[in-house]
């Protein structure tokens, strides 16, 4: 008897809360499936390393360890000399 009363009380309370929620919904209420909350962002953030940074021109690896051969341009056509560059603190 008590259990049935409690269940009925909870059910009516839930209906009241749901009705209040619908009245105060800031957006039009769509079909039931659309009212489901969107899944929260995954709590498991990527903790893996950044990964191998993008390597350039991987299609033309150098002669060893995959590094480019800087001793000469890899083009079959001769290249003009390029202007000198410099590296330093900014």
């Amino acid at each position: 008897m008590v259990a049935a009363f409690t269940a009925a009380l909870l059910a009516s309370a839930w209906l009241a809360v749901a009705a209040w929620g619908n009245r105060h919904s800031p957006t039009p209420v769509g079909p039931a499936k659309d009212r489901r909350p969107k899944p929260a962002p995954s709590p498991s953030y990527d903790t893996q390393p950044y990964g191998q940074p993008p390597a350039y021109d991987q299609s033309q690896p150098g002669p060893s360890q995959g590094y480019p051969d800087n001793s000469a341009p890899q083009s079959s056509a001769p290249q003009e000399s390029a202007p000198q560059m410099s590296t330093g603190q900014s």
Partner: protein
Amino acid sequence: MNELSRTFGCFGGSVSIRVSDEAGERAAAAALHRAELQLRMVHGRLTRFEATSELSRLNADPRRAVPASALLLELAAAVRWAGLVSDGLVDATCLGALERAGYGDSRADAEGLDPESFRAAAGSLEPRPASPDAAAHWRSVGVDREHGMVARPPGVMIDGGGLAKGLAADLLGRRLAAAHETFALDAAGDLLLGGSAPRARTVVVRDPFGGRPLRELRLARGALATSGITHRSWLRDDSTLGHHLIDPGRGEPAWTGLLQVTALAPTALEAEVRAKAALLSGPEGAAHHLPDGGVLVHASGEAEEVAGPLTERAVAAAA
């Protein structure tokens, strides 16, 4: 094929881009225009010196997880990666210490200390290798690419700094390498070279106090970055040496006995991280952080070359 070039101010310095395109000069000119727009966009979003930049808004956001653009996700991932590969020395979450050291505002137009003032300020310091921060806040920076979110404890702030510059160079370099015969990008002292038919170029390493060039290298593709403590140096209120490379363990500007380090690497981001890690390690530990080679400049001004796969070939070609 002639290269066209374009020079403009960005990343707190001067940026120069050179491109050649087999389709002709109009195609190269269009590529340069797009490249400038891209770099300015990256800088605008990732600078900490503009309160409205995406990075500044992230740093001010009280939420633990914050929606982020693909670019900010890349920077957050780079923060973690930099911490991992540098054993915690390149810690982009030391922004509070950086501001306390006197680098709260951009010093793009400020002159560094002259050699005499710098040596006088550094002379009273005992050189010692930097150490990682035990709290390692960089480990708390999380990236959720699926939902486009960056997470970190509120109050942990990120300094884009050199990471943003390296990231921007790599993003642009990927595009230029795929579409153009040659390209050379000088992003405020950090270089990225390549293309489908790259040219060997002479690259000189500048002196930390503006003296004669220290070394000459030959490279066709790859990256170089230089990090140092003389160009952006100042005297703090207590007349001690101030600069922008923080020892994470002490939360103070580092003095390791090195003035400047140039690192070679396959990418600009890696070169940037390697150079900083080597400088923070000091003369004894620097080589460990330069797997592709580099150039150290000691407190005495003496330059020392660290051999690696890239430098060996570069030096051989220059000989």
